[in-house]
């Protein structure tokens, strides 16, 4: 699955942009805080419009001069830094939110498989507010996977976790990379994290 990204967007006096190609595996967008790594993910997800450039994933054009797919048509799973679970829905309804909206032909995981894979079967009846940081991040990952994405975007998914939980979630991310073989764009400013997880590193903001 080839990823071909070349985007640019101006924010006041500064320009946020990146140009890279990547293959399947985990591509880390690495760089210090404040260089616009999250904005890059938002552009890929369709939440932020680049001024120019193109975004192509596995032969599909998500954005170029002639195309600008809305977020819901991009098949991009997004795991946010803060989980961003729906507070008015239980864990199970959060997990199924994107699954229900996905074209059945595109689905590649069931609720049971996701719950097994992430070890969250016992949390299905809980409210998001009652989850620990690590649990919430697992549910957020499950929710993104169940929406049948072609690619997963992860925005510093470990930053709100303590050291013990970080190790757990890193193992989950490695298994997504190696067992599920979902390509991942991974934003981080932590060298050790990137060295352990990444199959390719793109330096941003240099």
């Amino acid at each position: 699955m080839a990823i071909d990204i070349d985007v640019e967007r101006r924010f006041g006096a500064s320009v946020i942009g990146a140009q890279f190609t990547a293959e399947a595996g985990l591509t880390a967008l690495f760089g210090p805080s404040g260089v616009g790594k999250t904005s890059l993910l938002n552009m890929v997800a369709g939440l932020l419009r680049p001024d120019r450039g193109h975004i192509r994933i596995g032969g599909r054009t998500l954005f170029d001069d002639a195309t600008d797919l809305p977020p819901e048509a991009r098949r991009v799973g997004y795991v946010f830094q803060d989980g961003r679970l729906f507070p008015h829905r239980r864990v199970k309804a959060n997990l199924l939110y994107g699954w229900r909206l996905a074209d059945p032909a595109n689905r590649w995981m069931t609720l049971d498989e996701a719950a097994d894979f992430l070890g969250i079967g016992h949390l299905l009846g809980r409210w998001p507010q009652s989850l620990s940081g690590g649990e919430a991040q697992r549910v957020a990952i499950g929710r993104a996977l169940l929406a049948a994405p072609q690619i997963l975007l992860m925005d510093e998914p470990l930053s709100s976790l303590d050291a013990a939980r970080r190790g757990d979630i890193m193992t989950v991310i490695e298994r997504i990379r190696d067992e599920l073989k979902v390509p991942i764009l991974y934003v981080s400013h932590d060298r050790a994290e990137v060295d352990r997880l990444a199959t390719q590193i793109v330096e941003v903001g240099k």
Partner: protein
Amino acid sequence: MLSAEEWGIVALSLKVGGVAVLATLPLAFALAWVLARYRFPGRLLLDALVHLPLVLPPVVTGWLLLVAFGPLGPIGSRLQDWLGVTLMFRWTGAALAAAIMALPLMVRAMRLSIEGIDRRLEGAARTLGAGRWHAFRTVSLPLALPGVLAALVLGFARSIGEFGATITFVSNIPGETQTLPLAIYSALQVPGAEAMVTRLALLSVALSLGALILSEWLVRRTHAERARHGD
């Protein structure tokens, strides 16, 4: 406890208040949404217009309704000609007056609630495959719901308390436009009706107090929910 006549007054008040609030709800929600979410030229003016009935003397609001919806008014004459509908001196006119007086309170309550929604949740819904409308229906609207309920309760309480605009626009006709406050006013003019005044006044206090407590509880529930997920 209440006489048949008094029950009739209460029933009319509930009907006027209920119709006023339910009919205004979609417009009030749209106004609250636009004021909470968009920046555009004229926003300040729109905000001021929405709030106008709150500060204008109610008799002026009533007179403006009379001018606009009277048989010769620009809206009233058309309603009469095209639909055969008259609002003046009818309970529907009382509902219209109540609706206009309730609008600012309803918009305020819903706007607060809409401004409290974490918009990033809507972005999350979009990346999960929800179109704009689906994200609105399944995320924004449920999260705004406590504000909508508070607006309904507050608007309803305001509606059944409406006096000035109502008596100016649709007069004080027993059985047609004589709601609770108008009946109290009439009873005050009649010697020996003190007991009726007391009963209706206590009823008003109970209805208003109940509505305020209910709406405050609904608003607090939203804040508590927000605090729980650290916002």
